[in-house]
């Protein structure tokens, strides 16, 4: 620990890129992503793990990045919304969100997309209960969720077509 500033070194990979950070150990992963790495796709909605707008994947596990102190990602692989599409190719979930109207104002969308991608990785063909359950930690005030459910179902179909 650098006594002068209280900051510490943390190494991790974000969207496949190695990062060496010099940060306060209790800095929120959310702030580090947005302010140090300028990955502003991850949003803050509540700052208390309630809304899911800041969802990211740590080693493939869905978390609220506002609840993770950056020291705890030492050595981890982080994936944010910026790492979901590959080059010009959108992920099936992203395509489905556009097609089905799953994104309105868009502020919950990055977190919602991450949660949906994670859901389909764990459960490739979720039933409605599984979709509702898988997304219950992500609040949306625009859609009433219906179009988001439709988008997840559509993404499964798109995945099926590609397979």
């Amino acid at each position, binding site marked *: *620990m650098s006594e002068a*500033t*209280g900051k510490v070194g943390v190494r991790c990979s974000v969207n496949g890129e190695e990062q060496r950070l010099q940060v*306060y*150990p*209790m*800095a*929120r992963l959310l*702030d580090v992503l947005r302010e140090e790495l300028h990955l502003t796709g991850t949003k803050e909605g509540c*700052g*208390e*793990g*309630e809304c*899911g707008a800041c*969802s990211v994947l740590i080693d493939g*596990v*869905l*978390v*609220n990045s*506002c*609840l*993770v*102190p950056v*020291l*705890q990602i*030492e050595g981890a692989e982080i994936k944010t919304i910026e790492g979901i599409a590959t080059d010009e190719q959108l992920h099936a979930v992203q395509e489905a969100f556009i097609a089905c109207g799953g994104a309105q104002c868009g502020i919950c969308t990055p977190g919602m997309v991450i*949660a949906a991608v*994670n859901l389909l990785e764990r459960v490739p063909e979720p039933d409605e209960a599984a979709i*509702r*359950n*898988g997304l*219950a*930690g*992500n*609040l949306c005030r625009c859609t009433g969720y219906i179009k988001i459910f439709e988008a997840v179902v559509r993404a499964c179909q798109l995945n099926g077509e590609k397979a």
Partner: protein
Amino acid sequence: MRAYLPDYELKTPRNLNEALAVLAGEPGVWRPFAGGTDLMVLFEAGRLAHTKFVNIWNLPELRGIEVAPAHITLGALTTYTDVQAHDVLQSEFPLLCQAASETGGLAIQNRGTLGGNIVNASPAADSPPALLIYDAELELVSASGTRRVSYKDFHTGYKKMLLRSDELLRSIRLPRTTTGLQQYYRKVGTRKAQAISKVCFAGAARVEQGEVRDIRLALGSVAPVPLRCLKTEEFLLSRKLDEDAISAAGDELAKEIVPIDDVRSTARYRLRVAANVLQDFLLKLKNGESLTI
């Protein structure tokens, strides 16, 4: 974010012994920090008074679920997701699994730990009622040794517990004595998911020839601590489970719990719903109905 970031320290020890040495080295100065689902909320609201923390999230000594013939031992860092994924827990301790599935959303279940839920000592926590009826035992470790305490004695008052500042909760041990018990869990939250409980009930019982042979009842959000309802249990034990007994059990419970008004609900509601849920459990036992909600 309302905390003054430079005021806070968090450090990662290399192993459990080093963590315990840090806790013992400056008594009361360092506190453990695990999945962060409770502490970070306070931190961001600018209400985390303590500033020095030991990061125990990555300590392998506090992880893992071990199954032995007589009991099952869960590392303190077992997450709610780990709990739900475990076959033995699902078959023998279903209420703990149900509590885990109803705690927060998935992202919270991935980070929230059973140990954290216990030592955060919220009376509204979802897993304690289940742990209470399973007669959980806690293993506390410190640089000077290990001790075991019964979970039902652990919480001694609002946010007070039998945990010294140099100790860590290492594991939770559940005796495998649930065979033949009928089990029931009901969380009454502010909404279906991502909710804090207003009343949280866990019950297990064995009824033979209409008579209560074993009964374990526990409630959250109705007292300063998660409560094993021993007096109501005593009232019901060996009693014939008829409508009078069920009605009277509700009255007994009302004497045993001391709910409060807060921003989420009212004392009156908690009192009534706690009794209703208990009576629903007992009625279903009496009628031999399915206990899934």
